[in-house]
């Protein structure tokens, strides 16, 4: 790879391997993250996402391969890499017994910001993340969403150029998730390079410019969210017909909407792969069934989930990877 290409990339990974005993947590990973862009690393528990983040943030040494962050090698130049990065995820930086402001000021002091600047930066971040009113309260009284926002704020104290978010919304309620998404979008708009790991396809879809899918320590797919959805056939329109005598008529009515042969699944549903035309197809299905006088239930457009992606790409379900990892007794 030429130097010019490297200079435009905030993160370059080539042939990265890391094993724990017999378990190959990372088995030859290649990644490139252009400056100012967002890479979503998608995969189930145990796919190797967290191991990759640990290597990229200098916490684990790779067994093989080249890893550069902000143009510097994560092994030879680890200390400089630490000056360029921020890491956040599951609230680990927060001291529960201290207030939000105290937490951020302490982090500022650890970054050698000086007393005055630490205070100013803490106030600024509390404002930015909507935590000013709760600034003096102990962090243990915060909601899950507030805690994650405070944790994210902590990772931004020293204005890192490259940010790593390890499953930032896992375990949050829908409200907490969407708040977190808003905050992350703002950050990205200000030019921060972001690498985000997630188990949710919709999260990667919402936030990432590019997505790589991890399974068993390998990258099994990469591209934009739309590319991935195309790989698996995009949206699915589904409906059920409870009256068994109407099922053949129903299949005949919608047959021309699908490229592949349609059938009634064991759960009584008919699934039509609709590409990116989910809504238009849904409307057409409603018209035709109505015209044929067929009573349908559970009618809707389903967006593909991580499970659909996995099934399409690997032929196995996401939980199988999780089970394998549990059986091997290794944390990702």
């Amino acid at each position, binding site marked *: 790879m030429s130097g010019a290409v490297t200079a435009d990339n905030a993160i370059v990974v080539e042939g990265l391997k890391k094993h724990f005993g017999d378990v190959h947590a990372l088995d030859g990973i290649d990644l490139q993250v252009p400056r100012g862009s967002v890479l979503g690393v998608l995969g189930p528990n145990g796919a190797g996402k967290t191991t990759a983040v*640990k290597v990229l*943030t*200098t*916490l*684990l040494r790779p067994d093989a391969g080249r890893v550069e962050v902000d143009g510097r090698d994560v092994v030879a*130049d680890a*200390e*400089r890499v*630490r*000056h360029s*990065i921020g*890491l956040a*995820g*599951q609230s*680990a*930086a927060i*001291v529960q*017994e*201290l207030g939000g402001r*105290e937490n951020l000021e*302490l*982090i500022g*002091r*650890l*970054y*050698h910001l000086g007393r005055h600047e630490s205070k100013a930066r803490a106030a600024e971040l509390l404002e930015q993340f909507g935590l000013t009113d709760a600034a003096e309260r*102990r962090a243990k009284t915060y909601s899950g969403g507030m805690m994650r926002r405070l944790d994210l704020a902590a990772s931004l104290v020293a204005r890192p150029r490259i940010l790593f978010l390890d499953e930032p919304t896992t375990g949050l309620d829908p409200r907490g998730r969407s708040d977190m998404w808003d905050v992350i979008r703002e950050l990205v708009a200000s030019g921060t390079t972001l690498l985000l790991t997630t188990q949710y396809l919709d999260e990667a879809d919402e936030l990432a410019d590019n997505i790589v899918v991890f399974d068993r320590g390998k990258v099994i797919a990469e591209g934009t969210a739309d590319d991935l959805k195309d790989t698996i056939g995009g949206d699915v329109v589904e409906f059920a017909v409870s009256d068994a005598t109407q099922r053949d008529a129903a299949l005949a009515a919608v047959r021309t909407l699908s490229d592949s042969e349609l059938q009634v699944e064991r759960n009584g549903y008919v699934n039509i792969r609709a590409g990116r035309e989910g809504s238009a197809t849904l409307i057409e299905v409603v018209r035709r069934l109505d015209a044929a006088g067929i009573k349908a239930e559970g009618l809707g457009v389903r967006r593909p989930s991580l499970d659909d992606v996995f099934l399409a790409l690997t032929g196995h379900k996401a939980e199988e990877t999780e089970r394998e990892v549990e059986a091997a007794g290794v944390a990702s």
Partner: protein
Amino acid sequence: MTDLAIGPRLRWGAHDALTMSRRNLLIWLKVPAFIVFTVIQPVMFTLLFRYVFGGALKVPVPGGYVNYLLPGVIGQTAAFTSFGTAISLAMEMKEGVIDRLRSMPIARSAVLLGRLGADLVRLLVTVLIMIGVGYAVGFRFHSGILGPIEMVALSLLLGLATCCISAFIGLAIRDEESVQAFGLIWVFPLTFVSSAFVDVHTMPGWMQAFANNQPISQMVEAMRATALGNPPGAPLSNHVWVGALWMLGIMVVFIPLAVRAYRKGG
């Protein structure tokens, strides 16, 4: 900062260790349970031994059992301080706190030094309170001006050495419940099968050999000598040198082990 010379590098490291100490002390002050465990409990031990067992125990020191007891119970407190060291480090390892700190450009030594620094300050505060309580129930120094200072310094040295052992245990086990269940069990026989609370001669013969020579007894005897028996100008008790050597030996073994466990990360 890779390029810094030794001097600025040391200042950088000291700043980080002080910040981490301050953080740990802030946490200690904000959790009532920690204060009860670290301060009230030793004071309670002092009073219980003084009044419950004290009447029944005959000891060969001037001023009676309360004078014998105080250096012993302070020695026990110093060793028990290491519980907090092990449990906090194990918890921070497990919860990913230490990984987060390791991803930041802070001195590699700051987490360990900050922990030990805070635990020693905590011990110092506790020891001073215990001496105050001791005075209220009849304890008196019989050793001039330097004696009390030497005794406090020896208690900190004992605390530091046991905290180094516990730091290694906490970082190696990485689970606070396992640490509480079996990682610290060795502290109990070591503090009780010693000369901390009773005259070793009252124990069975086979036990005396251990009780007389193990490091906590050496340190307690050293503290007793500095508190009660060091006439002005006299040489320091043998126990002081033997005890100090023990403590240094423990640190030489366990500091590298703790550093290695820390580097491995969570």
